[in-house]
């Protein structure tokens, strides 16, 4: 009934937007005074339209999304107007707000595993939203709610919804969980869905499926979607119009085709230029055979197996299964794979943070199968490690200088002033001001911290550097700079590197030789440009096809190819 009504109103006034935001301004009260998170944002969303809000961290995109649902914390003060079907979210009462949520607007969160309550069945969680409202003037009965929940699960493409409705969240995979979250959002047929980074926590292949689902929803049910994301590829894939935000302001608002082909503002141009694009700027461009293959082999894995012991009764989990590869001196080996593929496990095993359980892993002449911390310690000065999250990999109580000095203090006999000088030189080599040695980690930005992390990894001029997703916690523009720096330093110092990433485009920029991992197995390895350009393995093909590129026209083509691939050629 309510859907029918909504449809008529939509038809009656095609120009009537589903959502209209006018001069939205959000201020947070913090310990250091008021912070303006959103300064002046205005845009509208028409029925059946997908509007993407893009921006880097701190641009205010998530705060805007939360303001649409009235989910801002108590410390926030908002002004302006957020009008959804005639109600201004900012001024309505809590009671009205509850009615609007779910009925007129729903939200899809970033992390599907935390958005679902683990102790209730998914059916119950979908029904919860239904029972909170009275769609047709009366409470939804238990059976009725179950029926609607099954219907909603069917809509989002969960197979066998009749049985799956009684499953608990942990019985679903990450992508399916996100489908369930979307089903819960859809249960009351809201005209508008706000999706806050809906695919960021998911693997690329799963991301492609979720994007497909969101597009279907729009096409079939005319649902409008506000998509919050930092991924330009996702934007190119899905959005009709794009709102680019920077430091709380709207920088540019244009249709997707126009924005990607002819960005007007300097910021947008820079942002688009920083996005790594598959096939451009490849490290192995023009290579036909493996570089450095005549050099000394630093790491050699033969039928490497790494198992994690299972809990009582359950068998051990094989994270790495019969993987063989070599890393030669001076070579950058790119290891690509989705979550759970075992790529981080391999990196950690080489650094002696994980024990190997089978096969052979030879690191700098040391057999890791009989690993003893005491005998391996002297070799540690030849191995640098750069961690994924630069914020967490520094001791918050030590200054940057002290952190970078750690390896020098442990492995060399340098005196205090000599170490200080050396640390400052190192910081300079990663393009950080010398004075930053006295700063504390929290006083640096993410990119600066990752540079400092690189400086620490390189402090002892190691022969091998292991970089575990070093740029995945960074914004694109920062990522571009860190990658460039990495490439420069690597060429200059000539160390071998194992570069681990889930992002094919990033790996292609740095690595001459690329290995693709899938469920603990090395499905394919070869020269970077050959893997990217002419993949042989089915999984590699799927992985490449599901990676959205930041160009709407090109992405539409790729999407068609990907669909064909999924249907089975």
């Amino acid at each position, binding site marked *: 009934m309510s859907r029918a009504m909504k449809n008529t109103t939509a038809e009656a006034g095609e120009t009537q937007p589903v959502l209209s935001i006018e001069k939205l301004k959000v*201020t947070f009260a913090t310990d250091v005074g*008021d912070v303006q998170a959103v300064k002046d944002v205005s845009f509208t969303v028409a029925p059946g339209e997908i509007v993407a809000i893009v921006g880097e961290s701190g641009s205010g995109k998530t705060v805007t999304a939360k303001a649409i649902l009235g989910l801002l914390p108590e*410390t926030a*003060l908002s002004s302006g*107007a957020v009008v959804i079907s005639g109600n201004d979210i900012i001024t309505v009462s809590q009671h009205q707000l509850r009615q609007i949520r779910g009925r007129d607007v729903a939200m899809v969160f970033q992390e599907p595993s935390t958005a679902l309550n683990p102790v209730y069945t998914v059916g119950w969680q979908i029904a919860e939203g239904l029972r909170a409202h009275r769609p047709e003037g009366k409470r939804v009965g238990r059976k009725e709610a179950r029926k609607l929940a099954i219907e909603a699960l069917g809509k989002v493409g969960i197979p066998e919804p009749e049985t799956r409705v009684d499953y608990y969240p942990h019985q679903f995979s990450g992508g399916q969980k996100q489908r369930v979250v979307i089903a819960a959002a859809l249960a009351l047929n809201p005209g508008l869905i706000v999706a806050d980074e809906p695919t960021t926590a998911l693997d690329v292949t799963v991301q492609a499926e979720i994007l497909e689902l969101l597009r279907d929803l729009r096409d079939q049910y005319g649902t409008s979607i506000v998509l919050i994301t930092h991924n330009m590829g996702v934007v190119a894939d899905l959005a009709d119009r794009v709102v680019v935000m920077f430091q709380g302001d709207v920088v540019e608002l244009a249709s997707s085709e126009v924005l990607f082909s002819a960005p007007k503002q300097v910021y947008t141009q820079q942002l688009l230029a920083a996005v790594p694009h598959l096939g451009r700027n490849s490290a192995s461009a023009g290579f036909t055979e493996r570089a450095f293959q005549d050099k000394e082999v630093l790491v050699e894995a033969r039928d490497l197996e790494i198992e994690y012991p299972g809990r009582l009764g359950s068998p051990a989990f094989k994270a790495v299964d019969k993987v063989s590869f070599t890393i030669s001196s001076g070579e950058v080996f790119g290891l690509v794979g989705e979550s759970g593929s075992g790529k981080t496990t391999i990196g950690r095993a080489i650094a002696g943070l994980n024990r190997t359980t089978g096969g052979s892993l030879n690191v700098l002449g040391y057999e890791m199968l009989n690993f003893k911390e005491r005998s391996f310690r002297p070799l*540690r000065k030849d191995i640098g490690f750069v961690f994924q999250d630069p914020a967490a990999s520094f001791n918050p109580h030590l200054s940057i200088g002290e952190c970078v000095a750690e*390896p020098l203090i442990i492995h060399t006999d340098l005196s205090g002033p000599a170490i200080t000088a050396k640390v400052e030189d190192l910081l300079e080599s990663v393009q950080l001001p010398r004075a930053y040695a006295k700063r504390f980690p929290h006083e640096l930005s993410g990119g600066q911290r990752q540079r400092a992390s690189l400086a*620490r990894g390189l402090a002892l001029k190691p022969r091998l550097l292991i970089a575990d997703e070093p740029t995945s916690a960074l914004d694109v523009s920062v990522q571009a700079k860190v990658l460039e720096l990495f490439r420069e330093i690597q060429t200059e110092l000539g160390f071998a590197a194992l570069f681990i990433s889930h992002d094919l485009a990033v790996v292609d920029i740095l690595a001459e030789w690329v290995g693709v991992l899938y469920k603990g197995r090395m499905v394919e390895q070869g020269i970077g440009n050959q893997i990217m350009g002419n993949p042989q393995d089915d999984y590699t093909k799927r992985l490449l096809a599901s990676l959205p590129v930041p160009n709407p026209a090109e992405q539409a083509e790729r999407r068609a190819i990907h669909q064909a691939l999924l249907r089975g050629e």
Partner: protein
Amino acid sequence: METKKSLFSRLPIISQLKKSMGLQRGMLVAGIVLTVLFLLTAALAPLIAPYGATQRFDVAQGPPSSVHIWGTTAGGYDVFSRTIWGAQTAFLVIVVAVVLSIFLGVILGLLSGYIGGWLDRIMVVVADAIYAFPTLLLAMVMSIALSQGRSTVWSGILSAAISITVVFIPQYFRVIRAETIRLKAEPFVESALVVGASSVRIMARHIYKNATRTLPLIFTLNASEAILTLAGLGFLGFGIEPSTAAEWGYDLNHAQSDATAGIWWTGVFPGAAIVLTVLGLTLLGESMNDLNDPRLRGRKRSGKKIRKKNNTTQDEVVDA
């Protein structure tokens, strides 16, 4: 962005006072005032108290008068002086007990959490076993074992302090162990491991400072518990003898029979001293705990001007 602040404003209590507001600030200020009052009394006891703690008078159970402003006890002690000197005893016991238990608890917690394995398992079992004992019973056993019936000022204070220590070590041990286990998996500890730092270096330089952040909070909360335990020991007669030092719990015990006879002054004052000191320390600890957690900390609403502007824009929208 946080800038360097002066050392003074970064001190534990001062920095929290600056962050606080409203009811939280009231609680914190009340806690600080009561605690400072307690500390001053303990420090200036020789100046404030008109008589010594062990000085006896012929007037037994005398009501408040100009000579003995809070009256005297059945044993002929001056209640006012005993209450003041009691603060000093309580202070010493708290300091000795808490310092000892922090030292041992932190070291054991770090070792147990970082090294793990069988060492960890044994230590946890022992800590659990101590936890399972009734606190006061354990303190009594320790007190008897240590003082062996005889009691001088220091042996009394030490035995009380050590018996309290035994009860508190598991608390510090558990907190530090839990933090250590959490920190052990943090990337910055792993990065130290990868660099080749030794276990001792990792524990001392990387984990220790990060694990002990919550200690000031447990410290204040435990200080109040230490006073209660001391008072409990004294009340049961295992504390410090009246002939060696003043102790609130003992005085309270001996005021029991007075209360039925209508002699109120012997019990009310030491009792109030215990209540106020414990209240002060608890308020201080609790409000520091809340203020350290950004989610529990109250904040001022951001400027009221914007709210007014909000109303006007809203009117405009309605008009349009």
